């Protein structure tokens, strides 16, 4: 078990900078997920931790030891690849024990460790099979088993679930979480799927353009995004960004948005937003904070009349889309609220959950 430290990590391929200076401290036993769109440098970062990619500048420490020049096999890490990378000509048992054999671990111990790992992953009955005889989910388990048997200091996962179908992905997600709770190994996990990141991580690292946008627990990222990118990336459907202006409104403030009545800013946020008065900003509102309006409005909640254009029933809830100043805004209403395309609908906007984003810096103010 060990902590992992990244200091000013830079990676340049030929002329392009894939990673532009990353600082990250990962605590012992922590489950950290690197998430971001493709090409954001998350996989490159993981591969540098693994030692598969040379580090252009900066330092990586695993368990306090500088590993910049340490070959992968001596870093005491194990990695699970996107396409599993199981050795096709070896049985499951041989796949899992290959690393131990190369390290000259005693036969009995290999057997013991493989069986223990197979037990954790419930793949005992597959040990004699070849990878090609396994289903996608089973291959995924074997790939994890190969990592577990090594008892490494750090697990590295490179988008391990992206080759599975949606249903299996959810199932394996739970499985990975269980395994981590059981073996308690420091884990760095890369994915482009923000739901995977939120559900698995102790802490999520959102990356974009080779830099870290924000690090935090899933709830921190969801409730207090620092940047427009994080606000838009975390949460599904994505947050609505509506051009707006903040104006004085009696003693408090209001948000002016085209086509909509004034939206008063909740009193406790007024001080924070006071410097922004008169500026053109973006109002960030998550769909789940635009609901059907029923009963009396609570504090900080405003009602608007929306002309619904598209309705997407999802079963447990319904997405409604309506135009605001030329932008499609998404709201999330109860199925029984009965929105119909083409009809008008009163919606309640929860301004307690609002975000204001400065379009010049893309930062949340």
């Amino acid at each position: 078990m060990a902590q992992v430290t990244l200091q000013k990590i830079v990676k340049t391929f030929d002329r392009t900078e894939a990673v532009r200076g990353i600082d990250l401290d990962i605590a012992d036993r922590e489950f950290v997920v690197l998430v971001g769109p493709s090409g954001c440098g998350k996989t490159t970062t993981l591969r540098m931790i693994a030692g598969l990619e040379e580090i252009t500048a900066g330092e990586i420490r695993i368990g306090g030891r500088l590993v910049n020049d340490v070959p992968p096999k001596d870093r005491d890490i194990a990695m699970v690849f996107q396409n599993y990378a199981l050795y096709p000509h070896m049985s499951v048992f041989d796949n899992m024990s290959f690393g131990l054999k190369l390290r000259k671990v005693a036969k009995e111990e290999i057997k013991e460790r493989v069986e223990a790992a197979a037990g954790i992953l419930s793949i005992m009955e597959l040990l004699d099979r070849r990878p090609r005889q396994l289903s996608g989910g089973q291959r995924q388990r074997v790939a994890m088993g190969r990592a577990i048997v090594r008892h490494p200091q750090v697990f590295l996962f490179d988008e391990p679930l992206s080759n599975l179908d949606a249903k299996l992905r959810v199932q394996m997600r739970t499985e990975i979480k269980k395994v981590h709770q059981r073996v308690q190994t420091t884990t760095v996990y890369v994915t482009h799927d923000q739901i995977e990141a939120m559900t698995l991580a102790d802490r999520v690292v959102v990356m974009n353009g080779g830099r870290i946008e924000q690090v935090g627990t899933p709830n921190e990222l969801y409730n207090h995004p620092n940047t427009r990118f994080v606000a838009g990336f975390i949460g599904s459907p994505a947050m609505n960004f509506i051009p707006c202006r903040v104006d004085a409104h009696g003693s408090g403030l209001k948000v002016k948005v085209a086509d909509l009545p004034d939206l008063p800013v909740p009193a406790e946020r007024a001080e924070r937003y006071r410097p922004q008065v008169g500026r053109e900003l973006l109002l960030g509102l998550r769909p789940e904070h635009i609901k059907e309006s029923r009963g009396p409005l609570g504090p900080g909640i405003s009602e608007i009349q929306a002309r619904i254009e598209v309705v997407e029933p999802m079963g447990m809830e319904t997405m409604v889309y309506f135009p605001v100043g030329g932008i499609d805004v998404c709201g999330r209403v109860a199925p029984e609220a009965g929105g119909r395309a083409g009809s008008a609908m009163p919606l309640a906007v929860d301004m307690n959950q609002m975000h204001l984003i400065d379009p010049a810096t893309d930062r949340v103010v």
Partner: protein
Amino acid sequence: MADVTITRTGLPAEAGQVSSLQRLMRRKSTIAFIMTLPLLLVIFTLVAYPAFYSLHLATLNKSMVRFVGLGNFEFLFGRETFWLVVYQSCLFAVTAVIFKAIIGFTVAHFVHNIPSKGQRKWRGMLLVPWVIPPAMSTLAWLWLFDPSYSAFNWLLAHVGVAPVSWTGNTHWARFSVILVNIWVGAPFFMIMYLAALKSVPEQLYEASEIDGANWWQRIWYITLPMMRNIISITALFSLIVTFANFDIVRVLTGGGPLDSTHLFATWAFRVGIESGDIPLGACVSLFMVPILAVAATLILRDIGKRGNEA
């Protein structure tokens, strides 16, 4: 990627890092170099060197002591046999490749047409000529063409046709060597085209059928364009091999009658090895280079295209 693998563990200082990285870069490429060294040795000493050496040889006189410049070439241009060889080589290569391609494509199509469980058996039978060493199979043809006991002539006699002098008459001898070459090479085309046919997605045919294409239009607008690359690679490759052919002519006619079936290779052998004029032989074989170079360039281009498609 793996540059990091070969370093020793835990070099602490950043200053040491650069030089150690350089060192291991060197070591990785050193390993790679050692692994490719035997290949390089074979290529350079036994292919590249002789290829260039023959350029030098071609400029010497028969006893190889005197430099004669382009004298050998001048001598060749003045000989009627040389022009006969040029004509025959081109005729042989072009005719044979065209027929191999047509027959190969036709047979591949028929094999592709039948139910797939029978395809293996037919494919297996039809590839046999390619598997037999050509020197051996040409002996069988030689016996089939035998002047006195030709089994073909026996069949012809039964339908009332006069016996054919398969290898004794200039025209028939040319026909015979081309026929044997087609027999040997057509199965190779068949296999290549069959592989290409199988790679054309079935949905394209279904779509074209819905669009109302008949079988000929399907071949013309779908099969051929989809296979164009393989067709040209195979044909160019075969052009090289056919143009440089030796075994068939050597065994079947030995270049005769009256040098009328000689190819560059067989004539070079006759002149260079059997008559002992090595420079002149080298000179003759060098005439294969232009055609080979053109074909090789085109193949490389097509293979590069394949890479881009993928």
